[in-house]
Structure formats: C-alpha cells, structure tokens
C-alpha cells in the first residue's frame, strides 16, 4: 500500500464509522488522525481516559497544555465548559481532566465520552484559519485566511478550487488584505511560508479526496517561523440526504 492508499483508508474508516453511528461530526481526535495521514501538522497531543493518564500526557508533552473533551455527542466543547487552556502542571492537567469529564456529563447526561485530549499549547504565532467545503457547483474548495479577529471582523479569507499547487497557495496568501502579518510585524520573525503553503496544498488534496465531506475547519492553525500546526479541527460530513 502506498502512503496515499493509507491516507485514503483513514478517510474511509472514519467516514464509515460516522455513517454507522448516524453522526455527521468527527471528534477532534478522529479529525487529527486523518489530518496526520495527509501531512497536515497538529499540535502534539494524547487521548487520556482518566485524570491519571492526563497527568502523564502533560508530563510527556512538557510546557503548557490544553485539555479538551473528546465525545461524539458534544460538538460545542467550549459552550459545554469542556475546554481548559494554559495548564502548567501534570497535577493541574489531572484536575482539568476531572473537571472537563464532569462538565461533559452535566452538559449531556449519557454522552459517549472517549476521553480528554491533552494537547501542547502551540508556540505564539499568527493565527490562520484554513479548511474548505464541498460546494455543489465547484466541488472541493480550499479556504485560507487570517484567523481570530481578522476572520470575525474583516472576513479576510480567500478561496481556491482544490487541489492547488504551491504557487497557487502562495498567491492565495499574498492576496490577503492582512498578508503583511505573515511577513512579521512589530519585530516578530516572518512566518515559515514554505511550511504554510505546503500545508494548504495538503489540505486541498485532502478535500479533493473526501467527497463525503461537508466542511473542514482548522481554526486556528498557528503559523510561526518554526512551522505550522493545527490546534483545533472541526470536520463535518454531509450525512445522508
């Protein structure tokens, strides 16, 4: 099996599982598994079932971590009080894990819970929003733009029909209103553009290979001089019509 075959299999497996379970949203953990196969970097993370495991994961990762619920029944994690950010110690990670698990059960009793995601907090960088949709007229469409407030207020995003090549991805980023952010402002080093454009190329290939997809949302993707990594992923499938 080629690398591509394995990557395609990852899509098939999670798509079939969602179909069987009658849901359209992937958990963050499921989404990350697919992303890794398509060479889309994700902030290092572990799935932990218990507070003890969460502490171990935090120790392994080192530095500050985030703790987030992983449940096929909870889409809006923040709303459910199931996201804790900037946790400094393994003990705090254990505490956050217990709290998030409890909040999840409060939010939705009987929710299936796979565990918590313990994820390294990304180094500071420029927040990028990237992803795409399957459009009825155009098929797979890639989106990329500046995340955070730029997305909320300025809608500073661009679209291209997937797949794109490196040149097209570069041109897409250069055309953003806030493109100067990527070159480094206020003394910050410029973003690793080679890494960022390659990630967009890889996202576009994933979109092309996943016709059952509805929307893919990597918000944010943190880009810095040391590379690019996703710290959240929302994947929605079309579901049966």
């Amino acid at each position, binding site marked *: 099996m*080629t*690398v*591509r075959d394995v*990557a395609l299999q990852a899509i098939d497996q999670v798509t079939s599982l969602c179909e069987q379970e009658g849901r*359209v*949203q992937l958990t963050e953990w499921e989404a990350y598994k697919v992303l890794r*196969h*398509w*060479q889309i970097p994700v902030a290092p993370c572990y799935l932990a079932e218990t507070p003890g495991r969460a502490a171990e994961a935090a120790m392994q990762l080192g530095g500050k971590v985030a703790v987030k619920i992983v449940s096929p029944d909870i889409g809006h994690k923040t709303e459910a009080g199931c996201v804790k950010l900037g946790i400094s110690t393994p003990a705090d990670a254990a505490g956050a894990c217990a709290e998030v698990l409890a909040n999840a059960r409060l939010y939705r009793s009987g929710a299936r819970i796979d565990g918590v995601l313990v994820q390294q907090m990304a180094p500071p960088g420029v927040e990028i*929003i990237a*992803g*795409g*949709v399957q*459009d*009825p*007229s*155009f*098929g797979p*469409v890639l*989106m990329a*733009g500046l995340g955070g407030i730029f*997305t909320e207020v300025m*809608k500073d*995003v*661009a*679209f*291209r*029909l997937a*797949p*794109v*090549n*490196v*040149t*097209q991805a570069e*041109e*897409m980023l250069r*055309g953003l209103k806030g493109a100067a952010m990527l070159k480094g402002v206020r003394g910050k080093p410029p973003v690793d553009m080679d890494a960022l454009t390659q990630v967009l190329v*890889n996202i576009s*290939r994933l979109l*092309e290979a996943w016709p059952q997809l*509805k*929307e*893919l*949302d990597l*918000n944010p993707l943190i880009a810095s001089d040391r590379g690019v990594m996703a710290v959240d992923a*929302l994947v*929605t499938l079309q579901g049966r019509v």
Partner: protein
Amino acid sequence: MAPTANTMASGQKAAAQLESMFRPRGIAIAGASSDPTKPGHQVLNNLLEAGYAGHIAAINPKAGSVLGVPSYPDLDSVPGPVEMLILAVPAKSTPDMVQAVQRRATQRKDLKVVVAIAGGFGETGLEEGKLLQEQLVDGCRKAGVRVVGPNCVGIIDNRHRVDTTFLTGVHRRAGGVTLLSQSGAMGAWMALEWGAQPVPVGLNKFINLGNMADVDMTEVMEYLAKDPSTKAVGLYVEGNPRARALLEAAERVAERKPVVVLKVGRTDQGSDAAMSHTGALAGADAIYDGAFRQYGLIRALRVDDFIVTLQAFDKLPLPLGGRVSVLTNAGGPGVYTLDCLTDAGLSLGKFSHSTHAMLAATLPAFASIGHPDGHVDMTGGVSPRQIAQAVASALRDPGIDAVIHLFIPTRFTSAEEMAKELLALLPGLKRHSLDKPFFPVLLAGHGVEAARRLLEENGVLTFGSPDQAAAALAAMVRFGVDRQPPAMDAAVDGGNVR
C-alpha cells in the same frame, strides 16, 4: 481525466458542429412571418440586416415569400444546404419540428444545428415544459443535430453576418471580442453597451445559449479557445451548477487570450446551514472570486469597465510592464486619475533625464514635471501641439510602459485641434516600433464627442473617464504579468501525499 481517443474524436466532431453555429451554410427560419409582432419576423429582419450572404429560407405554410425571402411550407421542401434551423415557433410545436428535423437529417444530411428561441420549456419549471425540452434535445441529438437554447437570445457572428436574435441596435462591424452571456438580458445590455463608443468597436460574436439544454457555455468556451478570430472573451456568469467545468474551460482560453468576467450576486452571504466558520464564509461569490483569480480570469465589477477593458484588449498593444505615466492639462482631474490608478493597483513610472529635459523644453515654464514621478501637469495654458509633443516624449521613454493622457478643453485649447496634433504624431511613433498602449481620456460628454470621434475614426481608442482607463490598463498589466513564464514549482501537481 485524460482525454481518450474516443472523446478526442467526439470533441472534434462537436467543434465542427459548433462551427455551424457561427458559420452555417444555409439558414432556414421556422415561423418566419410578415407580422412585425412575431419573433419570426424580427429574426428574419435581423438576418437580412446583418447581410448574411448564404442561402436564407423562410418556413411558413401560408406565405409565398416573407420580407422578400422565398418561403416554403415545411422544412422538407426547403432546398439545401440548410445547416442551421432557427425555431421561431411556440414550444408546443416541438414534436412536429423534431420529426421534421429527423427527416431532414436522414434524407438531406445537411442540418447541423437548431437554434430554439422560444420560451415555455425547462425554464418554466413545469412538467410540460421540461418534457418538451427533453423531446427537443433527445430528438435532435438522435439525428446528430445540436440544439442551441431553447429560451435563448441566440447568436450574432459579425464576421459571417449571422444574426439569429431579435435584438436591436447592435453594432455590426466585426472585431476581435466575443461576448458569451449566461443571461439573455444582460447579454443584450452588453451588446448594446458595446456600441457606446463615439465610433463603435467591432464585435466578433455574441452568444446566449438560454436553457443550455444541449450546447452549454463550457463547450462554447472550448470552441473559443481554438477560434483564431476571437482575440478576447467577455463572459457573463451567474449561479451555474456546472461552474467548475465552465471556469476550467475559461482557464484554457485565458492561457492565451484575455477573458474578462462579469458576475452578479457579489453581495450574497454565506450559507445559513453552515456548521463552521469556513462553511459560513464560503458564499458562492467568494468562491467564484477565488476561482477567477486562480484561473487568470479578469473580473470587472461594472458593465462599463467590462466593455471598455475588452475593447482595450482588442484595440491596444499589451503593456510590457506596469509603469504608467499620466499627462494632464488639468490639476484636479490629474490627482483624481492618480487615485484611480492606486485603486486599480497600478503605479507611476519614472521619466529618464532626457525625457524630463524634453518635456521641460516643450511645455510652458510653469508646467509641473515629475511631481510625483511619471506625472505631468501641463497646465491649462498648454497648446495642442505642446500636448502632442509631450505625449510623444512620454511614450518614447523606455521606463514608461503606458501613457494616460487626460484632457479638458478650454477656449484656448480646442479638443479637435489637440486630436489632430495627436494624430499627426502617433503614426510616427508606431513606425519607430514604440507600440505602447495609449489611453486618451477626453473629458467630458458631448463637448469632446467630435474630438473622440476624430481620434477613433483614425484607429485611436479613446476613453470617457480616468476610472475606465485605469480599469482597462490594470487588466492589461495583470494579463501580461500572469503570462510570464511560470516558476519551477508551478508544474508540480502530482496530487499525491508525499
């Protein structure tokens, strides 16, 4: 998907059939009528007015001749060849027409294309209409005949003097630009706007395919990519379920020829059903806009910019770069023009020392030269001859790729005198192979109409506003830049994860 031998062959056959849309040997009009309120009357009238040189036949059981054209009771009795049949008859007569088409195709084997003008088909959304459309297309396709429409304005080909439309006021001179419009009415607006210049620019083809039940815009775009007489394409699109295929075909045209696009619905919002930020932002127009950029299609936001840009592509040489010079006899409009250039993403060039010296020697002492670089305020006291000499100096400067010349007439400086002086100098400039785009902007309205006409009659395209000149020039610069040799990695697109 790579084209197989089979699809290649059928593609060639399709191209030959489309050729008959624009260059038919023989045209018959079903429903041709002496009654001016009937579409069949107006279509025949247009065809005669266009001066179609081939064989024209009216089909009307009740008349011996229509508008002086011999009339026949049915398609079977029309002498050949008839490559195009225009259906100017109501939708309900479709079953009879299809039978006649099939008989003709079997017996005479000359019919290639049917242009079905009438409405009352699929666009109604009614079962009856959809069924008639299916009958029309299936019946004709079985006979090897292609269908344009139904519910279409149709085709104008000024080179071959074909006009299947009932439009009025469309200029009939042949030129290099083909207009392909998804909407009949937008197409009519464009076709009329096309003739708005003091001396209308020629038009190559006008195409509106209505319901696109058979021949669609993608197929026509493929044809235009290979049509040597089409130098540039103006495309009007709106929501289109086959948008990707259409724009991919447009990209193949844009590799060699400019494609300028107008699309309405810019203000639409993202889908309400979106689950994520990405989904909410992915409004149809945002995707179209991205695809236009990706495929090197030039988007115009206004109809007048769309038209003027296409005409500039047809009439002017491409600039070799984006270094612009602005010469004006009026200060305020000069600054206005600099704003237009900035909005359009253009910037000024810098005069060489010798150009600067020439301008200083030519122009009145109080002229402002090179403030900013590339900009000359010649002032209101400048004479027509001085203007022409200054324009020539700017055009000769190797550091300048295009010249915008802004002019407001006064009692001292007549627009016509200025035009005559320009004409005396411009042919000389061309002989010295300094073939750069030149944008004379004469302000404004009726006051400069005669001068613009004089220039245009002598082959110099003029512009009605700095906004239009800047929009056209920006499009030309972008087209040139996009077609520079691609970077190495542009060819790498394996589609594999590595």
